[in-house]
């Protein structure tokens, strides 16, 4: 008797816990796993629901963990769409076989070929540039105009760049491997490590701040972090942005390293039709405005409107390396970072 009473409480708690389960039984719905954490996404999903009447359920998380969960859940899992923010991640998803090939005329027509997976496993909906940021009073834009310059001994103690745990750096090194081969890429990584102004710390914004505060004269960061500072409500942030200058690297050769934010339909998606509709919706001008410019990224669809700052930069040369190469070279990039002692 007493034992029953002891166990009654935890049992009741467990039952209440399972009652919390979100039931996925509504007629028209779409289940999204997203690695994006932008508040503009809520508006994006709302717009989709308004247009199609399809309810959207979202689970936000870290890319690699979402892919891990998808892999474990297999085809009986609830997810329809995976949204993530780096070619390396899209490749990992593909590699773990979580995407299903999609054939869509709308997507093929709206998106340029290098922004799509050849078999329609995933589609890129926005572009981000890994740019250089310099202190114009300390270095010349001519001296630091290529990623290769970051390893130049002339910049000893001048370079701020974040940890190699970060996928953006892994993809950058993956592109170096693609262009120069493994050996030269490793020498480059070692050269950059020798030029560190400090041990890698913080995120991309912190590298830009490092230049502004004089801790280093060159930093590497994705362009939108800089635009975010420029457009900040906080005066101190705007001052930081005004002290640095953005440099689009390698304009005289292959162009600046580009990465994509993209999405794909999940294998075994219970609402596959809705998933394809959602991807097509993401390629519309309306959604592009929310998906790309909500985070100051470049839209994948060329007819879509650019954010004011981005438009003011005008045209610049982008590396047209197929982004799936970034994923293929990722494991080697991580190992090179480890060997080069890039924390």
């Amino acid at each position, binding site marked *: 008797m*007493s*034992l029953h*009473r*002891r*166990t009654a*409480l*935890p049992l009741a*708690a*467990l039952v*209440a*816990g*399972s009652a*919390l*389960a*979100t039931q*996925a039984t509504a007629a028209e719905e779409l*289940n999204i796993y997203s690695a994006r*954490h*932008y*508040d503009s996404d809520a508006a994006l999903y709302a717009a989709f629901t308004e247009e199609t009447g399809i309810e959207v*359920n*979202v*689970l*936000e*998380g*870290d890319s*690699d*963990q*979402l892919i*891990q*969960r998808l892999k*474990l*859940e*297999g085809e*009986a*899992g*609830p997810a329809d769409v995976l949204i993530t923010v780096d070619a390396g991640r899209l490749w990992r998803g593909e*590699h773990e076989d979580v995407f299903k090939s999609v054939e869509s005329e709308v997507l093929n027509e709206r998106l340029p070929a290098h922004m799509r997976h050849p078999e329609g496993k995933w589609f890129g909906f926005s572009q981000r540039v890994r740019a250089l940021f310099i202190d114009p009073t300390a270095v010349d834009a001519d001296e630091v105009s290529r990623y290769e310059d970051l390893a130049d001994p002339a910049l000893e103690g001048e370079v701020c760049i*974040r940890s190699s*745990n970060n*996928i953006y750096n*892994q993809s950058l090194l993956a592109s170096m491997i693609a262009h120069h081969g493994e050996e030269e890429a490793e020498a480059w990584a070692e050269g950059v490590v020798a030029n560190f102004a*400090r*041990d890698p*710390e*913080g*995120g991309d914004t*912190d590298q830009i*701040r*490092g230049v502004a*505060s*004089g*801790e280093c004269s060159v930093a590497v960061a994705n362009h939108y972090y800089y635009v975010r500072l420029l457009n900040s409500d*906080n005066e101190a942030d705007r001052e930081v942005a005004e002290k640095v200058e953005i440099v689009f690297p390698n304009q005289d050769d292959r162009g600046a390293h580009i990465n994509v934010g993209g999405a794909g339909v999940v294998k075994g998606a*219970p609402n596959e039709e809705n998933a394809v509709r959602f991807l097509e919706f993401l390629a519309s001008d309306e959604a592009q405005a929310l998906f790309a410019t909500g985070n100051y990224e470049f839209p994948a669809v060329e007819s879509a409107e650019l954010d004011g700052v981005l438009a003011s930069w005008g045209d610049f040369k982008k590396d047209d390396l197929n982004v799936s190469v970034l994923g293929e070279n990722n*494991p080697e990039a*991580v*190992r090179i970072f*480890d060997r080069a002692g890039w*924390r």
Partner: protein
Amino acid sequence: MTSPASSRARTPSRLSLPLNLWNALTIGIALIVALPVLVVLTHLFMPTDGIWQHLGSTVLPRYLGNTLFLVVTVGLGTFVIGTGTAWLVVMCRFPGRRLFEWGLLLPLAVPTYVIAYAYTDFLQYAGPIQTWLRETFGWSAGDYFFPDIRSLWGAATLITLVLYPYVYMLARAAFLEQSVCVLDVGRTLGRGPWRLFTSVALPLARPAIVGGVSLALMETLNEFGAVQYFGVDTFTTGIYRTWFGMGEQVAAAQLAACLLAFVIALVLLERWSRGKRRYFHTTGRYQQMPEFALHGGRAWAATLACLTPVLLGFLIPSGLLGYLSVQGGDALFGAAFLEFAGNSLLLAALASIVAVSLALLLSYGARLNPGRITRVATRVAAMGYAVPGSVVAVGILIPFVWLDHQINDFMKGQFGMVVGLLLSGSAFILIYAYLVRFLAVSFNAIEASLGKVTPSMDAASRTLGQTAGGTLRKVHTPIMRGSLIAAGILVFVDVMKELPATVILRPFNFDTLAIRAHSLAADERLAEASTSSLAIVAVGIIPVILLSVAMRRSRPGS
């Protein structure tokens, strides 16, 4: 075979039946909770191609070095701060003591990643302090020395500041529960406050203090948010990188197994050094505690000693976060926030009720059957605390998804219904994950408390006709009421702060305060993350204050 002799012989076996039931129950619960950890451990025997060679020759020495450094510094730091302040507050009279009794617990409400966000912004090169120094003295980079907050030392300091309350709380409870008679004997024999502390109170409180320090160390071992933010490579960040970054699941699980082995070694070392000594209360006689009234400089030194950890671990970071939120807080502040907070509270409350109930059953079961199997089972069940949350999550998903697939296939075959993944898509799995992670918290507290109840209590109760269950309910539970509440609140606060497992296991459209803070911080929007970080702290304070009230009430004899 119906002779009187054989019916008499059956009597003892009927008596032992409930004991067997208890034994089965204990081992059963322990196995269920240990399952994810065991799943991870099975990877130990799988082959890996060359990845260990790569890890060993590149990053592994750094992971090891950093992790050991953190363990030693945080262990020492939490021990000194926690035990020292607990002794002061229990035994001495000095200005502000009443306030510090509960104030010293406040840093418990601050997650390590939150204190890291707060201090980094303030102390980094581009932050206000260093900028002010440079502007005032005309220095530039390299002209002056300023400790780098994003470093191993920075991480060790901040982790110590938010984890010492584990030691403080358990040490204080132990000092309060110590029989006055023992202390009186010490005083009669001429021990001053310092000698009384080192030669009587400290050895008597040893199990509780060790419990507290080991909680703090296990938190340190699987700490992810702050060390990752600081770029300090530890075993845990290494596991994460190997698993999710390099896609080497097997090697990562093997790294996790190494971490576990380390923890097991620590636990065994402590057990071995304790030897056969056991600590019981021999008397129920309590009187007003004899206090040492401190005067003048010594009194103020005591005040300062207690103020510093509260200031650095709670007041300053909260103030910094408050300032950041006012400057540019979260745009979603309002109704959405109530939902986040509601989810956090609900999960924490459910998890703590379940964790305390199971910990009570486990520790009592182990007391009834002090055999090797039960001991090992309960230890393994508590291991989950030392495993990084993201690894626990995967260890949970593997068996759960398997079970779900079985259910799904069965339903499809029998009724043509597609139910999908029933369990792994629900909040149920979250509660289970918290249980796996935090059972050790409640178990350690309850086991320490139960261990101090002398076995003659059990003997008396059983002689008077109570069953094992009745003894637990009528004798032990009332005695341990304070410890039970304390255990529940500890789990509550831990769940409020938990991040990695929640991120990966939660259902659709279900966000908590910790998730919100993490999303914004991961996106480098620290000012906006400050609002939810502050909210975690604010919601976490409530149970911490309740905890201090419960602890005060539980003090015998006053």
